[in-house]
């Protein structure tokens, strides 16, 4: 009896949660299909495909923007993992002089407004010839995303002492095997958490992408912002739906891959 009640309570909570989550998306969908939606109408009296027609017309460049957004986000994630694995390892498990300073510098992008850093990055990139290119935008995206990946990895590393690896080493495991069988499985959830945050933060960068990409590297925020600031809520809503879809899709993919990995590992060990 008690358990059943608990179940009902859970279900109720879940449904409430779903409603709360989907509520802001419903008007978004309706606006993107409406031809004007005025108070006090509960539903718009006219529907139109104007917004979606524009979004998927060849000159709107939506597909290119989606492709660029995903490509940049994924590349940035990989670079972040490579940069943060050694950094987090050292910061989490070793002590050295000036550690706080280095941590502070690495976390700085969380506190310092991006506009300040990006103006400097822009000048340097002009010298280096990185402006108006995908590579430049990717490198610039590392600044605001790195702290999230680093934080997630440091926490993972903190829960695993050096002893496990020492023991494996005594049992004759080489560097690669220690990484493959002890370290990676343990910090994988941290990598996934950091990757999700990196992808979300990278997907939503506007200013950095605009300044470094000069409008030539077109990502979703680049084509979305003018419509929102210009007040075309129909097209703005359509783009927002695509944007949320993209973010959800990448999170879902990441989650599925992780689950599959753990399943495979359990059967492998068993």
């Amino acid at each position: 009896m008690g358990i059943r009640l608990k179940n009902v309570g859970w279900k109720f909570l879940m449904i409430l949660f779903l409603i709360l989550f989907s509520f802001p998306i419903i008007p978004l969908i309706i606006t993107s299909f409406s031809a004007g939606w005025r108070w006090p109408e509960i539903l718009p009296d006219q529907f139109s495909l104007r917004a979606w027609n524009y979004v998927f017309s060849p000159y709107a460049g939506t597909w290119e923007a989606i492709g660029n957004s995903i490509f940049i986000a994924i590349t940035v994630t990989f670079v972040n993992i490579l940069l943060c694995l050694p950094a987090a390892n050292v910061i989490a498990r070793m002590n050295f002089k000036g550690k706080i300073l280095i941590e502070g510098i690495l976390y700085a992008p969380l506190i310092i407004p991006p506009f300040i850093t990006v103006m400097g990055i822009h000048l340097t990139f002009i010298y280096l010839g990185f402006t108006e290119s995908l590579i430049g935008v990717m490198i610039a995206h590392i600044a605001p995303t790195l702290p999230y990946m680093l934080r997630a990895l440091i926490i993972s590393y903190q829960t695993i002492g050096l002893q496990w690896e020492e023991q494996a080493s005594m049992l004759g495991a080489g560097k690669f095997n220690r990484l493959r069988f002890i370290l990676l499985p343990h910090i994988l959830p941290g990598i996934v958490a950091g990757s999700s945050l990196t992808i979300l933060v990278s997907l939503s960068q506007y200013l950095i992408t605009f300044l470094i990409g000069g409008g030539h590297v077109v990502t979703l925020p680049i084509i979305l912002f003018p419509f929102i600031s210009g007040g075309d809520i129909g097209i703005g809503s359509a783009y927002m739906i695509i944007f949320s879809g993209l973010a959800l899709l990448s999170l879902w993919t990441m989650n599925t891959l992780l689950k599959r990995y753990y399943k495979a590992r359990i059967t492998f060990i068993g």
Partner: protein
Amino acid sequence: MNKINFACLILTISILIAGCGVQQEQAEEDISLNLLETNWETILKEAKDQTVNFHMWGGDDRYNRYIDEFIAPRLKEETGVTLNRVAITDTKDVINKLQNEKSVNKKDGTVDIIWINGENFKLAKDNGLLWGSFASQLPNVRQYVDINAPDIQYDFGEHTEGMEVPWGKAQFVFIYDEAKITQPPKSIKELGEWIKQNPGKFTYPAPPDFTGSAFIRQALYETTGGYEQYLNAANEEELDFIPLWDYLNEIEPNLWRGGETYPESLAKLDQLYSNGEVWMTMAYDPGKASSQIEKGVFPETTRTFVLEGGTLSNTHYLSIPFNAEHQAGAMVAINYLLSPEAQFAKMDPVHWGEGMSLDPSKLSNEDREQLHLLDLGKATLPADELAKYKVPEIPANYVKWLEEGWFEHVAKR
């Protein structure tokens, strides 16, 4: 010994390279100087197969479509120039970018054409971010544009010196709902009375929103006795804006939400209007109301009106930055954008619905006939009525003072 030889070799090579660089730079400068003097045929030849990056505000699908669907294919077919529209949110971002590029002397800039006017033009001109005086090189400018007209020669009081070319003209209009207001006010004073009688039904976007700022200038002209006194730039200390602040503070308690807050942008005000929360909105674009009706955003009964004491008008321009890579292509593209064909299409509310920058008296008879046949949309006032009440914009430096003053005397109070 070997080491010294090696060092000498390096030195020689680097001098050679540096020398080449200088020579190349000179050659490039020669070409760009030539473009300002050479004949149109040479420019056309040079422009062929170039891809021109046109940086323009991308927040209206009509404007985007006009460029992508109407201009780009025709330009490509007629001249071989490819037009690539780059959407931006704020022209100031482009100015910042150019300023950065100027400070490190970047030569191969990616901005070929920039859509600009007012403060941004002054900023760009003062900082040497523009290429040069190219206007008189364009055949369509020579043939169709009245370059000496005051509203074209002066951009917010700043002499254009041929560094930018007029692309279109905009005028300030108020937008109202005919179903709710039978007799729209005819002056700023009448507007004040109307606001008192209809509390909560009017507001304006908070400056520095572009349109909100224009509304304040509109009120300034009438409350301080006309625009003429502002045509010559003056010192801030000499100016008396007090009647303006008095007026704005007087209407404040009867504004939307008792004037406690102002919409942060025109987009927000438009939303309030289309939801029926307020009964008026405004636009620095006489054709906007018609196209918003067409889109279904504004009610069918939406109309526009202008004040009889005069309504602000400005011209917006196209310019070429100092480091544009495809100057010839940019000239050819701008020339096409100023052709009667392109300008008429822009006037059509299907595309854009705004005033042309060409002088009607310079058009051919056929073109003029076509102009009369254009249907401008039901909420758009006829061109002669708009022209009758037109007054020029204020010099660019006043705009900043007014925006700061509004914050000090109206918003903070």
